């Protein structure tokens, strides 16, 4: 079975940014995404799921270029004022052309 190596971008951030980020991620070239709920702790302290609801964890399987673009967008626009983390990993898929 022929496989391709793509990039899996994971973003954990405030629920309030979810809609905006999903729009942006797709604009930058992502063909799909998977969402889960998360809580956590980082430099901005504990983010427990309270009135604001839990944080959102976005994962998207994309090409290297799109991954870079997403990371760059977040670094430039969100790092300063929002609770957000983003990291990129390798992932092998079949029918890789579907995601790029």
């Amino acid at each position, binding site marked *: 079975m022929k496989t391709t190596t793509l990039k899996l971008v994971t973003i954990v951030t405030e629920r309030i940014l979810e809609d905006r980020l999903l729009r942006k991620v797709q604009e930058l070239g992502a063909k799909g995404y998977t969402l889960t709920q998360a809580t956590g702790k980082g430099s901005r302290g504990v983010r427990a799921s309270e009135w*604001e*609801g*839990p944080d959102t964890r976005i994962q998207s399987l994309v090409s290297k270029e799109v991954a870079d673009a997403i990371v760059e967008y977040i670094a430039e626009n969100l790092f300063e004022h929002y609770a957000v983390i983003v990291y990129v990993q390798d992932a092998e898929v079949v029918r890789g052309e579907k995601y790029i």
Partner: protein
Amino acid sequence: MEHIITLASNLLSPIILMFVLGVIASLVRSDLKLPEPLYNGLAIYLLLAIGLKGGVELNQTPISEFIGPALITLFLGILTPIIAYNVLRRLGKFDRINASAIAAHYGSVSAVTFIVAIAFGTMTGRMSEGFMPALVAILEVPAIVVGLMIAFTREKRAGSWQEALHEVLAGRSILLLAGGLIIGWIAGPTEFEPIAPFFEAGFKGALGLFLLEMGVITARRLEGLKEVGGFLIGFGILVPIFHGLLAVWLGGLVGLSIAGSAVLGAMVSSASYIAAPAAVRIALPEANPTFYLTASLGITFPFNITLGIPLYYAFAEWIM
């Protein structure tokens, strides 16, 4: 003497004690915590129930009675964020962004404080006007707009003004309150009857359960007290008192009953912690959430539901 009894009767009412139980649970690091979907569901239920009931009673109210209170509420929704902003800037030396962020919260309204104020009234036998929930809907939005306008007038900001406004207007508090009002108004008492047991009989108990969780959440906010400093703590008590007494007085002037004026006082005095934080987070991401959340949720909310509400009722009785 009589006022002390009313105060005690508020402090010892089961729903306030459930709030205290929640605070204690959080302090002893208990696992007691309402599951988030349930807390969420209770919020939906309470807002819808309040809206429905308000609508049913609005259905029976001549519109002329409603105009005065509506206008005065709108006026207070514009005035109070301006007062709060100036206190924070001039006395508190806050920067413009944080001052306007906090001001947006103190101009807007806490639906739970409102509900507790209504419940306190009915428990002590004093019914407020049926259209009060409509006033909550009127009070919620303008202050947030005013608060954000103050921040946006001079510089271009990082956040999005339109998204923030959408967040408030299409937010569930407004939709449920306003939607409930309209549905209740259309339905009237007869059509409301079949669903009344669900939305009326269970109401106060559900409020108690909700306040249990509010206690847990409030207690978590107490950590922020050290960070925010003495000024904001004083602000979180004194400015609400001032706003509240002002509203009680104006409420009386436009013909609200004693209970109605007191409830208006509680509403105006209260600080939003659902609609405003969401809007501010989007429009003013540079503002520090610790300031506005600790103040509104950690200070003003517990102050109001314990001491503030009996105070507004006492003041309303005293001036009328």
